[in-house]
């Protein structure tokens, strides 16, 4: 390990431990890390957008003859009108453009890309039923989908048959959330393992070079 590499490992270790220290109590180390963290991530966007959007997608093609890209460029600039109270309303136009295009993509992608196939797949489970267990599974899926949809039905009070279905729905939902919780625990622990792997192997490992 070179001196520089040891320095790098210690930088990472310093910020890792500073952030962990918050669990004991708020302290100046944590505050330093927190504020540097906020600044760096803001600065990150500048470099990223500069190169991948402004240079590659706007400037270069425009120089290459796609002059009409000047329009989205101007639209983008108008966003900054936000910061000048008198003309801040101007920024609504680029915003509306972003919202309009996104909304257009969304309507289609949600209804066509999600609703239709998920409906089809729900009916499909009944198709390949082969034996008792398949039948049971298909029942679970169909009842689960319908009762979940009913649980989120707001137009009627949940009483009578609707209430029973909604009750079944909330049980199903809790099973699913339980599974989610289990999986999430797994994920977070994995990330902790990643950090500990670093601290134990790299950081503690670097001690032998120094001491």
């Amino acid at each position, binding site marked *: 390990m070179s001196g520089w590499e040891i320095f790098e490992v210690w930088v990472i270790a310093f910020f890792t431990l500073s952030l962990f220290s918050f*669990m*004991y109590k708020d302290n100046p180390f944590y505050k330093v890390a927190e504020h540097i963290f906020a600044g760096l*991530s803001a600065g*990150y*966007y500048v470099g*990223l*957008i500069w190169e*991948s*959007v402004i240079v*590659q*997608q706007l400037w*270069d*093609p425009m120089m290459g003859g796609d002059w009409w890209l000047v329009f989205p460029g101007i639209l983008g600039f108008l966003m900054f009108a936000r910061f000048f109270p008198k003309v801040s309303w101007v920024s609504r136009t680029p915003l509306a453009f972003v919202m309009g*295009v*996104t909304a257009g*993509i*969304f309507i289609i*992608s*949600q209804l*066509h*890309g*999600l609703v239709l*196939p*998920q409906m*089809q*797949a729900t009916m*499909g*489970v009944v198709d390949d039923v082969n034996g008792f267990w398949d039948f049971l599974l298909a029942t679970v*899926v169909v009842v689960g989908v319908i009762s979940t949809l009913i649980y989120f039905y707001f137009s009627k009070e949940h009483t009578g048959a609707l209430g029973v279905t909604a009750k079944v729905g909330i049980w199903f939902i809790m099973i*699913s959330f339980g*599974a*989610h919780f289990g*999986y*999430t*625990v*797994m*994920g*977070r*622990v*994995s*990330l*902790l*393992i*990643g*950090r*500990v*792997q670093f601290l*134990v192997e790299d950081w503690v490992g670097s001690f032998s070079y120094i001491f």
Partner: protein
Amino acid sequence: MEFWKRIEGIDRRWIYLIVGIAVIVPFLLPIPFPISITPEAQMLYDHIESLPDSVTVMLVFDYYPSTIAECEPMARSALHQFWRKDCKIITLSNIPLGGPSMAETVTREIAPEYNKVYGEDYVNLGYKANYVAVLSGMGTSIRSIFPTDNSGTNLDDIPMMDSVFNYEQVSFIFEVADNATADYWVSIVNAQYGVPMGCGTTAVSAPKYYAFVGSGQFVGLLGGMKGAAEYELLVEKPGNAVIGMGAQSMVHLLIIALVILGNIGFFMLGKHRRRVS
């Protein structure tokens, strides 16, 4: 009673300390355990195996550096499997923070093992803002969205891209994601362009994506570090995910113990009779 009251009111920092110990100990005293393969991981592996050799595939790095522990082993294993089959790999990312550079690091590290050359066997397109536009735009033309690769080389100057224009030339997409971008790969790319897809995701998102495996929109699924460990075993390249399983076991058991302890206290103190709304 007094005991349970004290247990109940314990400072949370003691719990943090116990967790810390539980995660460090297995690194010092490793305990090996057999890892079984879930059908979803097997399906993903089998589908990739069944692809014709040397087709073009996409490997998408849609995860932040913060979830490297879970996601990177998946991307690595996928590279091994793809390159053993001589596939041409397009990597890209919808993650502004770190996605492109992680793709760069991982591919460059594994490429020499299979004698793969940048530009001929793999290309890194990098990142563009607004994933919705990126995903659907590539359906018409990859070049309209990514005129150059990550380092600024024109796509027309990259030999591998000579015959690749849009999703029609892509045989398979492997999405490694730690966020909702995977939803849009399904609802836009798979639904509108019909490219078969597999997904590796964090344990947090995995339960949600079972719905997409069931509907055939994903050919298979890797969930979290366990999924990554399974895939590592399938491609016979055990790595960090397999190693981490020991600590994983310890902390899971600890948390289960805490849940049980907490609930015993809850009932001993008779709090369950006061229904909290």
